[in-house]
């Protein structure tokens, strides 16, 4: 079972890296996360470079998360098959705009397809030395809801990309919610 899961992680990582590269993005694939159910599936990976964030400047907005790609998502599932759903199966870039507190979901054609809420959290305290890089970046899928009935429905996907070091972490969470 462990072998199957490791193979799954490797193949998902490769597919994500290939798709991201085609869009000029580099990913931190060690941090990949996924959630597959019978209605909706998501794979998420943090965009490389997040580990250079500094906790203090991220918290007060000086780190410039303005239109910056933070996560790369793959969305699929039966919930997206309905013609009324404004999202389709495919790869999406999650861009953060800290000034507005929003995230934008951009498809592989470069079009904005949805907008949602951005949250940046520092836990429990910032690392003590300014300029020290975080060790690693990891993704989590924190909410996955797909409920499509009779051409109407609700889809909500939330994920975070977090970097941590010395007991502290910075987490950037993006939530996309579409009702139709």
């Amino acid at each position, binding site marked *: *079972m*462990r072998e*199957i*899961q490791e*193979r*799954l*992680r490797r*193949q*998902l990582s490769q*597919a994500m890296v290939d*798709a991201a590269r085609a869009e000029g993005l580099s990913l931190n694939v*060690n*941090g*990949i*996360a*996924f*959630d*597959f*159910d*019978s*209605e909706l*599936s998501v794979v998420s990976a943090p965009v490389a470079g997040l580990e250079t964030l500094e906790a203090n400047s991220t918290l007060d907005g000086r780190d410039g998360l303005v239109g910056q790609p933070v996560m790369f998502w*793959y969305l*699929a*599932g039966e919930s997206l098959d309905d013609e009324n759903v404004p999202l389709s*199966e495919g790869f999406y870039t999650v861009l953060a705009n800290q000034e507005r507190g929003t995230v934008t979901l951009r498809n592989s054609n470069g079009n904005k397809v949805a907008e949602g809420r951005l949250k940046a959290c520092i836990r429990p305290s910032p690392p003590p030395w300014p300029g020290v890089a975080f060790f690693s970046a*990891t*993704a*989590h*899928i*924190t909410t*996955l809801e797909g409920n499509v*009935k*009779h051409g109407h429905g609700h889809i909500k996907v939330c994920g975070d990309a977090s970097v941590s070091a010395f007991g502290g972490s910075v987490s950037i969470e993006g939530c996309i919610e579409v009702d139709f």
Partner: protein
Amino acid sequence: MRVEIEDTFRRELSQAMVEAAAADQMELYTNGIAFAGNPRLSVVSAPVAGLETLDFKAILDGRYVLQNTPVMYWYLAGEPLGDRPFPFSDGFYSVVADQQSGIIALRNRNGESVAKGGLDVCIEPPLSGVGPRVAKKAAAGPTVSGKITSVTGTWWPPHIKVCGQVTIKQSGVTVKVKACIDAGF
């Protein structure tokens, strides 16, 4: 990606789950399999077969129908579970519901309860005024699906939180059985 990777692994994981469950004298509803993971923790969940025959009328009447009833079968693996003081290790577990007390027990393959958690049973009554297409689908028979709603794990302190859900639809009525385990330090 969906066809090439998801379908292949869905089949492989289903097969591994079915074999493990058979050794535990359980049958699974593999169409409802769900799998999720992050760098710390991986979870595979499948609904236990037979849930589609639950007495929905009794549930709607407020009676307890889940008493020491296996509702999901989980495979758990990851860094926190490899830590020695953690109360259980990588492996297959039954999620056993007791509706009256509102708790679930995570039971290992020796039948021992290794953790307890919260149980929610939610009922959505049939929609009124639905069209013929929906009515036909509702009349087609019960459906069972599964999902994993939370997977979090920390290496230090070793701690995990896993939540899963089974959704059973029968004659337009939807019952959702939700279970959450929060274990570790």
